[in-house]
């Protein structure tokens, strides 16, 4: 390839690289599991409103119709009525079909997770890049601001913000973004610090390129990969945080189909109807696990030290 005048060898080389990456991926069962779960979650998100009518979530509560009707599992609980119609996972505390509610809840959590992570990447790239590249006072100022945010426990900060700003899905998202961005700024800054020492940056200076061009076109393109991997890993973590916040009651409405909220509504009946908390909980676990496995796997596969 190094004799590279022949373009077809190059194309072949690139395709071979991709094949090798896919080969590594096939050999790694955990990544495959992560990939299946993540893609499944995304598909469910895309199709949820076709599968379930979202209006079902907002029906007037049907007078606490806790019932369990599952042909496969028998919980052996006798004081719970069986449902007139068949619900595969039973009903939730408001008498809605639990499976339908979980299907409606997955997109809500995933949307918040993506919004939080995307905003954190944006803030991280812009301000972390600036801090690392400019150095000096700018660096110091940006780092001290991240310190202030990092000094307060994240969940506590989020709780205060939601209480102050009012309970709604957007404020929930903002509150988590505000606790989340400092990590990305610091990660980006450290990447830029090491990248800006490289000779190609010196060459760009010598060619008369301006600071913004060097930073945001050249350095960021080299420095952004660890951030993207962190983002994949963080989707699961954000979902956990969102569920935790809604679980402890910071939800816009008790009727909101959201995984933490569904679990939270079920906790009062944990002994009589444990499925209310088990199924949303297992869903949270699976989604976070899936994205974490995927992120870990991508990191391993694209880590040049682990290749060859």
């Amino acid at each position, binding site marked *: 390839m190094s004799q590279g005048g*022949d373009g077809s060898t190059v194309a072949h080389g690139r395709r071979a690289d991709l094949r090798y990456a896919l080969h590594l991926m096939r050999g790694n069962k955990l990544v495959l599991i992560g990939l299946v779960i993540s893609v499944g979650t995304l598909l469910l998100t895309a199709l949820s409103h076709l599968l379930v009518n979202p209006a079902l979530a907002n029906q007037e509560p049907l007078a606490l119709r806790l019932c369990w009707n599952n042909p496969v599992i028998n919980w052996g609980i006798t004081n719970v009525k069986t449902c007139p119609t068949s619900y595969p996972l039973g009903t939730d505390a408001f008498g809605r079909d639990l499976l339908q509610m979980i299907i409606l809840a997955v997109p809500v959590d995933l949307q918040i997770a993506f919004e939080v992570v995307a905003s954190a990447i944006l803030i991280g790239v812009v301000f972390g890049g600036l801090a690392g590249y400019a150095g000096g006072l700018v660096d110091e100022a940006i780092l001290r601001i991240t310190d202030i945010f990092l000094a307060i426990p994240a969940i506590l900060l989020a709780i205060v913000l939601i209480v102050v700003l009012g309970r709604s899905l957007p404020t929930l998202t903002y509150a988590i973004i505000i606790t989340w961005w400092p990590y990305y700024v610091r990660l980006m800054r450290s990447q830029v610090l090491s990248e800006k020492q490289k000779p*190609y940056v*010196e*060459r760009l200076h010598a060619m*008369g390129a301006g600071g913004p061009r060097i930073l945001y076109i050249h350095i960021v393109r080299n420095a952004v990969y660890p951030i993207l991997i962190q983002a994949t890993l963080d989707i699961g973590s954000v979902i956990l945080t969102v569920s935790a916040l809604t679980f402890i009651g910071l939800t816009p409405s008790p009727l909101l189909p959201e995984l933490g909220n569904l679990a939270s509504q079920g906790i009062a009946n944990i002994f009589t109807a444990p499925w209310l908390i088990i199924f949303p909980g297992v869903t949270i676990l699976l989604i976070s696990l899936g994205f974490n496995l995927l992120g870990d796997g991508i990191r391993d596969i694209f880590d040049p030290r682990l290749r060859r």
Partner: protein
Amino acid sequence: MTGLQKSEVLKVSNLRVSFNTYAGEVKALDGVGLTVRKGEVLGLVGESGCGKSVTALAIAGLLPPNAAIIDGSVMLDGREVLGMTEKDLQRLRLEEVAMVFQDPMTFLNPVISVGSQITEIMSARPELFRERLVEFRIAQIEKGEESTETKGERTRLGAARSGGRLSSKDFNRLAKLYTISVLGSVRLPEPEKVFRMFPHELSGGMRQRAMIAMALVRRPKLILADEITTALDVTVQAQVLQLLRDLKAQIDASVVLISHDLAVIAELCDRVAVMYAGNVVELADVGELFRNPLHPYTVGLLASVPRADAPLSSEATIKGSVPDLINPPTGCRFHPRCPKAFDKCPHIKPPMVEAAPGHFVSCLLYGGVP
């Protein structure tokens, strides 16, 4: 060397640069003076640490923040470079001074294709390159070369030539065609394919050619080539040197070729400046310098080149080691190592004198003793 003659592209005079380090003030350049004429290749030769690269960096305004310019001037095409604002310097580096670096791998951005890294130079400041690209393309079409003309291209080019607008789509296409033609002119095989390749897909020699193309695209007045063959294999070195020799005839840029390899200097340069410990000690035409070296350091340097037809002798080395530039020797900085040093040497800094026509030397043996 009096006054700024018309043919002089670069005139560095009495340049003094220091670096502030923890250990103390490193007096890296101690009154460097040299001139580069239009179209000429000036070799800058000397040991590691003698100030060759610092001189080049100072010319391009690229000295690191801990460097202090104490005195002197760098006149580039009649304009003073020292003390320019950062904005002017950026424009200067984009238009007039191009630097080609030592190790071609690390000086290219690994995640951007070679072609994009070159066209980027033009698209960053389209107003500077617009005219040139239009002229280039019109000439290309008239010669009926290579890539086919698109519909209505000639009309649009004609309009752009007479002061009309050039759409960014057209500009990018022209920049690409121009880049490909420059990649071809540095003898990269199949330049269209190289355009799309990434740096890791090129060999060392190809990367160095791409770096040279990057300099040529800007049509600079002055090219600073810093040890460009050092990181290459000997056979590839020969190819790159051959390329430079051919390009020398085609482009009208002046070149400052920095090297510690006397063979490369002898091969390519018109004139040579020998540096020692932050001073230019001798400056002469290349033939004159190799035939008739005057300064004792130059004599030692030429004698220390290992020869295939003679055994190594300990006579052929320069005694002692490179001086500590924090506390440099007084007077002539070479006197502690000089075989011909006499009682005046530690006390008088030798001025540059013209020992023979066009042959300048800074040594008390040839004058300058009051």
